[in-house]
């Protein structure tokens, strides 16, 4: 069973700052997804990364999959209050049909 760690657990920053959050494991994954969850809502997919070393950009968000496909990072440039939420990484489960989620990084961007 994959065990995902995410760091930091909590992050509170001022609008305009840059930040990076991490998703780590000792296991190798075929793919990794990042989701954002806002209060009272379900998680929403941000990106899927598949290839080791892959970098994907989504506006001010940059996602990187580690070369060994064991970890990933999410970098946000010039954070805005609308970026506030719980950022979750997820990987395919043992049998490939379910997804296992990390504990998340709770980001708060203050105006």
């Amino acid at each position, binding site marked *: 069973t994959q065990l995902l760690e995410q760091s930091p657990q909590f992050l509170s920053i001022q609008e305009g700052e840059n930040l990076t959050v991490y998703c780590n494991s000792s296991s190798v994954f075929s*793919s990794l*997804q990042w989701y954002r969850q806002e209060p009272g809502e*379900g*998680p929403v997919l941000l990106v899927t990364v598949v290839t080791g070393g892959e970098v994907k950009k989504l506006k001010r968000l940059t996602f990187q999959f580690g070369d060994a496909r064991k970890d990933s990072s999410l970098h946000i440039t010039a954070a805005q209050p609308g970026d506030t939420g719980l950022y979750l990484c997820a990987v*395919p489960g043992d049998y490939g*049909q*379910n997804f*296992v989620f*990390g*504990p998340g990084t709770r980001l708060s961007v203050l105006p």
Partner: protein
Amino acid sequence: EPEVTQTPSHQVTQMGQEVILHCVPISNHLYFYWYRQILGQKVEFLVSFYNNEISEKSEIFDDQFSVERPDGSNFTLKIRSTKLEDSAMYFCASRTRHQSSYNSPLHFGNGTRLTVT
């Protein structure tokens, strides 16, 4: 854009009572899931459902839980005799299947908040 719909948004029940949580997945999706999230904790997998049967379940999904797809559009989660520790947000999700099915994303509903008193 099509979305996953869950009802009710909030369900309050007494310990020992049965509850049924309802979900309407996206219509052309083939995989269906229930996850739960206890307040402040991680999103936990309960069960996946494909081709009218359970394809995978976690240790949380014990004999008190069951799922059903009664009519081709609804997907329900039943908890037979609720316990206090069943209080959580329950999320339904669905996923399509295509060539790279393991990469296709989960589409979540907005959840049902279950409160067991």
